[in-house]
């Protein structure tokens, strides 16, 4: 009888222990503190824990940030950086977050972590794709790249780079032309091919070939002058010989652009074509050691950032259901004895959080995680080992907001009818934007302070907070027979506070009373 009572007591003691213990054969997590919060659908968990890896116990501070981007179209992952035009650069994570918020009016950063390893100038070691633009294919170290598709899927592995391509977009961002580039800083070897010259090779481009000179808004060349990215607008074209201009590109081809497909309102992109499973990724960033594969921790690292040594570390994990999460582990805190983790321990921590795939990102002093708070400030969640957040090359961020749609390719010559702009635009007393419908329209695009909103009808509710807004509208066509109109002129509209609107209504009554006899 006593034995039974003791067994029952022991059972309840184990089950109701305040420190839940995750039991694996080699790895245990015993946390003394654990908090969880949700910000805009993104979960943040912080743990101070004792981990036991194969008998070795260490104190760790672990931060987790994750969400399921595959089931929420308004939650996405983007990459960000502090790159200059015509170069690279580094910045601390919150500086990068401000850049992301400034670059994309349709996204608002919720939080994120540092990303890839990098050189002193901020050149990322691996491939980096920012809003479909392949800024770099990487330095050839053949590490892992992680890509994010618009449908919420995450791809990882080695992309295929199949050579340079020239992309021409119209002012709406619709693709007009996509042709392969034979080479960089060389003459084309046949009449049908084109090449591109960049400024880093100052040699005369001979005559008798058409040269389209592009004013570049951005040029990225790697530290060794071997890898290129360029973006810009048409300046002029000529058959004369010339030197590649500074902050410019020259597209060279026998009869290239004689048909004037590229116009002054278009922009062109010169980049490596990214293919394979990475075809169509909107954002991609490099990582290194594969920590977890198919739900199993890596047992042996042939390379990596000191996999057997303790460091602060950052990692990305993907769960079975598509949830993507970031983890940071503090380290190099010798005073409080938070020394960091090995890659082996990090792999187990990623498994603890149910990763089926996980990769190590840059760590050490680069390890930083930031999250927005209730006052819309970005707060560092971990303790950077440098004592202050390090200036890093890039990062990964969860954002609130929908991707902008990818427009259909437009034909050339473009014989589609341009639709009329909406007219008689006004805002009614209920705060609805109204305008006359346009014949043959497919829908309308309402642009409010730089962010586009789709509307299927000629009325759109403005559920805006008090403030002043710039509003433009354009008519959208089916893109087959009808192309978009230009935008209307900007309408400045002020949403008053509730009390101010009441004052206005009150003085309208005064006006009305004063008018009547």
């Amino acid at each position, binding site marked *: 009888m006593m034995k039974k009572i003791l067994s029952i007591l022991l059972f309840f003691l184990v089950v109701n222990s305040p420190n839940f213990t995750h039991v694996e054969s080699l790895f245990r997590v015993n946390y003394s503190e654990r908090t969880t919060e949700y910000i805009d659908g993104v979960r943040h968990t912080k743990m101070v824990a004792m981990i036991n890896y194969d008998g070795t116990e260490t104190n760790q501070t672990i931060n987790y940030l994750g969400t399921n981007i595959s089931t929420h179209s308004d939650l996405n992952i983007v990459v960000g950086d502090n790159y200059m035009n015509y170069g690279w650069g580094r910045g601390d994570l919150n500086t990068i977050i401000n850049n992301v918020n400034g670059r994309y009016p349709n996204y608002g950063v919720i939080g994120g972590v540092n990303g890839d390893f990098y050189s002193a100038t901020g050149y990322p070691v691996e491939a980096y794709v920012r809003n479909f633009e392949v800024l770099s294919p990487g330095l050839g170290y053949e590490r892992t790249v992680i890509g994010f598709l618009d449908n919420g899927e995450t791809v990882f592995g080695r992309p295929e780079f199949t050579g340079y391509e020239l992309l021409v977009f119209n002012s709406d961002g619709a693709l007009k032309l996509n042709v392969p580039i034979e080479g960089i800083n060389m003459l084309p070897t046949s009449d049908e091919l084109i090449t591109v010259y960049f400024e880093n090779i100052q040699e005369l481009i001979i005559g008798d070939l058409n040269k389209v000179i592009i004013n570049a808004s951005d040029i990225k060349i790697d530290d060794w002058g071997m890898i290129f990215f360029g973006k810009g607008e048409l300046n002029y074209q000529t058959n004369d010989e010339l030197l590649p201009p500074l902050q410019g590109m020259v597209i060279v081809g026998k009869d290239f652009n004689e048909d004037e497909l590229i116009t002054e309102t278009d922009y062109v992109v010169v980049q490596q074509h990214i293919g394979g499973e990475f075809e169509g990724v909107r954002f991609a960033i490099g990582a290194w050691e594969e920590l977890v594969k198919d739900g199993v921790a890596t047992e042996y690292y042939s390379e990596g950032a000191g996999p057997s040594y303790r460091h602060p570390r950052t990692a990305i994990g993907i769960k079975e259901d598509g949830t993507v999460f970031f983890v940071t582990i503090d380290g190099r805190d010798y005073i409080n004895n938070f020394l960091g983790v090995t890659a082996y321990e990090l792999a187990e921590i990623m498994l603890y959080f149910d990763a089926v795939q996980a990769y190590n990102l840059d760590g050490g002093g680069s390890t930083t995680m930031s999250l927005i708070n209730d006052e819309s400030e970005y707060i560092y969640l971990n303790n950077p080992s440098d004592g202050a957040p390090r200036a890093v090359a890039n990062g990964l961020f969860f954002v609130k907001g929908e991707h902008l749609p990818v427009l259909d390719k437009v034909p050339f010559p473009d014989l589609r009818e341009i639709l009329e702009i909406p007219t*008689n*635009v*006004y*805002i009614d007393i209920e705060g609805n934007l109204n305008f006359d419908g346009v014949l043959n329209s497919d829908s309308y695009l309402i642009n409010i302070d730089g962010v586009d909103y789709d509307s299927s009808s000629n009325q759109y509710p403005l559920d805006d907070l008090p403030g*002043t807004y710039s509003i433009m509208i354009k008519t959208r066509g089916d893109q087959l027979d009808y192309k978009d109109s230009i935008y209307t002129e900007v*309408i*400045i*509209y*002020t949403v*008053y*506070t509730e*009390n*101010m609107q*009441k*004052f*206005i*209504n*009150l*003085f*309208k*009554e*005064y*006006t*009305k*009373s*004063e*008018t*009547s*006899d």
Partner: protein
Amino acid sequence: MKKLSVLILLIIMIFLSSCKKEPVIEDVISCTDIQIEVDGECIDLTGQQIQLRNVLENTQEITNYELLVTITENEIEYEIMMMFDDNKSAIQTLNQIDYYTDYSGVCEHLVVMNEVIIISSADCNIDDTYLFFKNFDYTWFSVIDGRYSLNQENYTDIEEFFLETFPSSSLESFTMSATEAFIADMILELSIDDEIYIIELVISSIDQVDLVLPGGE
């Protein structure tokens, strides 16, 4: 005998009931137009009171003028401009201009926004509550530091204008200045849900407004 007594009593009663009371003639106070009656006495108005009375009476009569209202909310200023041209008026805010017309009892409301004109019929009925300073009484004010200051006991008279729109509002202060003939400006502080709104009203361009309706008359 009894019949005689009843008859006499009846005659007396008839006589008494036909008596009319002599009306009590009270003393009637008749003050001049430069005096005011206070507790049954005529008190001479001061020069300032006469002046203010004339100003308010003149202002009450104006039908052609501009009224600029500036409201400060959380240190942000908003302007509302009103223009009156007899039976036409307009009120302009940041987003639109509202016009009101009254032609022989037919009232219309036109809204112009982004060059779009929307016309609708309007209610011609006047609600005196909304006539605000046109209902001011010179006895409500005292002169303090060169401005007319509303007496505390008359705060409710001003609050009445705001009460239906802001039921929980209360007046914190009100001062006014005047030209020789008309009210020039009014400055008031109105408390609404623990927030203070500063409202300034300036009257100008009296008899100089020529309001042209959108799309012609």
